[in-house]
């Protein structure tokens, strides 16, 4: 049961990381900000700009 919970935590963590939701939570924490549409858009500007300026794998 404990292992299943740990596996679920990793899986959920991976999904949140791949969806950038974890990065957004870190962004809010780092800037001491609360979630809002405006904050999300500001975060997206920065995050997506960096993410899509790097080469993608084949």
């Amino acid at each position, binding site marked *: 049961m404990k292992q299943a919970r740990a596996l679920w935590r*990793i899986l959920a*963590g*991976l*999904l*949140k*990381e*791949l*969806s*950038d*939701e974890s*990065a*957004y939570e*870190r*962004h809010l*924490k*780092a*800037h001491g900000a609360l*979630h*809002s*549409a405006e904050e*999300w*858009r500001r975060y*997206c500007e*920065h*995050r*997506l*700009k*960096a*993410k*899509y*300026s*790097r*080469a*993608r*794998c*084949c």
Partner: protein
Amino acid sequence: MKKTLGQILWAGIAILGAYSLAGIALNRGEKVSSMWLVVASTCIYLIGFRFYAKFIAAKVMMLNDKRATPAERLRNGHDFEPTNKWILFGHHFAAIAGPGPLVGPTLAAQFGYLPGTLWIIVGAVLGGAVQDFVILFSSMRRDGKSLGQMAREEIGRLGGITALLTVLLIMIILLAVVALVVVNALKGSPWGLFTIAATMPIAVFMGLYLRYWRPGKVLEISIIGFVLVMLSIFAGEWVAKSATLAPWFTLSGIALALAVIIYGFFASALPVWLLLAPRDYLSTFVKLGVVLLLGVGILFVRPDMQLPAFTRFVDGDGPIFAGKIFPFCFITIACGAVSGFHSLISSGTTPKMVAKEWHVWPVGYGSMLLESFVAIMAMIAACVLQPGVYFAVNSPAGIVGATPEAAAATITSWGFPVTAAQMASLAGDVGEESLFYRTGGAPSLALGMAHIFASSGGGRALLGFWYHFAIMFEALFILTVIDAGTRVGRFMLQDLLGNIHKKLGETSWMPGVIGSSALIVVAWGYFLVQGVRDPLGGINSLWPLFGIANQLLAAIALCVATTILLKMHGAKFMWITCTPLAWLVTVTYTAAWQKIFSPVPRIGFLAQADQLQGALDAGKIAAARIAETQTIIFNNRLDALVCGVFLVLVTAILVDSALLWAGILRGTREAGVREAPFVVSRLRPEEL
């Protein structure tokens, strides 16, 4: 006691791996179960990971968990963030797994299942995973520096410029070749095209949803997007059967190529949040889900390999691409064995997220092994098809004949029986008009995957759904590579143009954005159209070019890695990176030389150009085809030139590196390691 048990366990894994490998390598005549490939590869990966990679980690890299990583020292909540190692493993795997490990093995199956399988396993354990591992380690010890920066600092200025130019050129060829795979999969397929076309409004809807309606809810909208995509697959069947709608979605190769080019331009120039990012989220989740599904399907069905260990095409006369096993098998399968592109990921986001130094062992080495396993699964999916069907789908009309009957007769004469009626029945089952001449690898891979999925449940009745599900997965995945790649190519070009005129380098200046996007799109679009028009199917010329380019990038990465190992330990451990480097240089230089200078017209670009020029001069070309022939002649010479440029660029970096190594070994050149200073880690396990 525990140690003895461990030794017995590892001895058992080694014996099982050797037995399975001998089984697939020595078996002739009887059909081999795909499980032998799964068991052999898994055992060898485990041995490679536990012993070879651990040796490199402990003795060569001297990983030290007490040393703070850049993620800890430079933590900023954005790029630099200590991350749980399994989450980072998944993140890194999702970033390195592109369409390459799926398409390459499917094409290389023309030699039989054995050459490609051995190369995938051995290449990954001794080459590809080592490259990813050492580059990730090197970048982590250098505060997450990119491959280009490391090449400039460790080898010299020439190395940095060469790396940048090579990446830009490879990107152009990569985008053209993957676009060609999509075009060949979707031409004349209203079901497939409708499904893919539907992903665009779905992605825009997802973008608007995230931006205005439910900001930040990426997982939520990804689930909604996935449901909508699945519905579009069902709707696609209805569209394909509609007399009114089907013609709208039945496009020729050229029309589709133009559509993909226009799409690439808009995807590059539009705001990222509107189309690119939502499509990327969707693509990533579908990709991981399908890889998992395929793995479970293979374990559940345990299909037999229908293709033999070796086919007659080991002689170099294959219909899919011309050339012998050496060197062409080794450049056809790049991703899955050794991929230079991985070095860009290993020196990109990942090194900035490593929490503890020892995590680079599973993340760098382990995730490449998983990608290699994906390539094994693709090889299985291709080889579970009847050989006649496999060659009918993948062979161009220019080789097998322009009518289904002629093609079936040619393929049967090779010893792989197939009939036009059999192919028509199969096409009917998957809801396609025809499955002949569907070159590029994607349709045959989709057929193999559909066969495995349908055998797991649903049977023949669901074959059409699974085939289009697989096509949707491949195309979605590839279009994400195209739009993201065009954008990155645009940034690289703007970076270069900014040196000429400062304004051109500004990524927010609209004329610069539009102009550079157009230039990149025209560059890969030209090669795409060339591939679509090629009577030999395009894959014959473009895939080897891409394979050579990708492996040459790996050679650059291994030069950087060797330089770093040399500076750390002298010549003692150079063999670790020099062995795969020597192999890649031998393979790629031989392949490039043959692609340029081989006297066989199907292999050598110049020989094909000369042959056509001769026919043109002798008046053997019909008047209606003169212009087209002149274009093919020009394209062949252009391909030879591009291949030559790759060789010159990599030779420059090789010579530069060799001079540096000789200088370091003689003591005439500086051998200082340029790592970030040692800082004691204070990161607690509960923080991860």
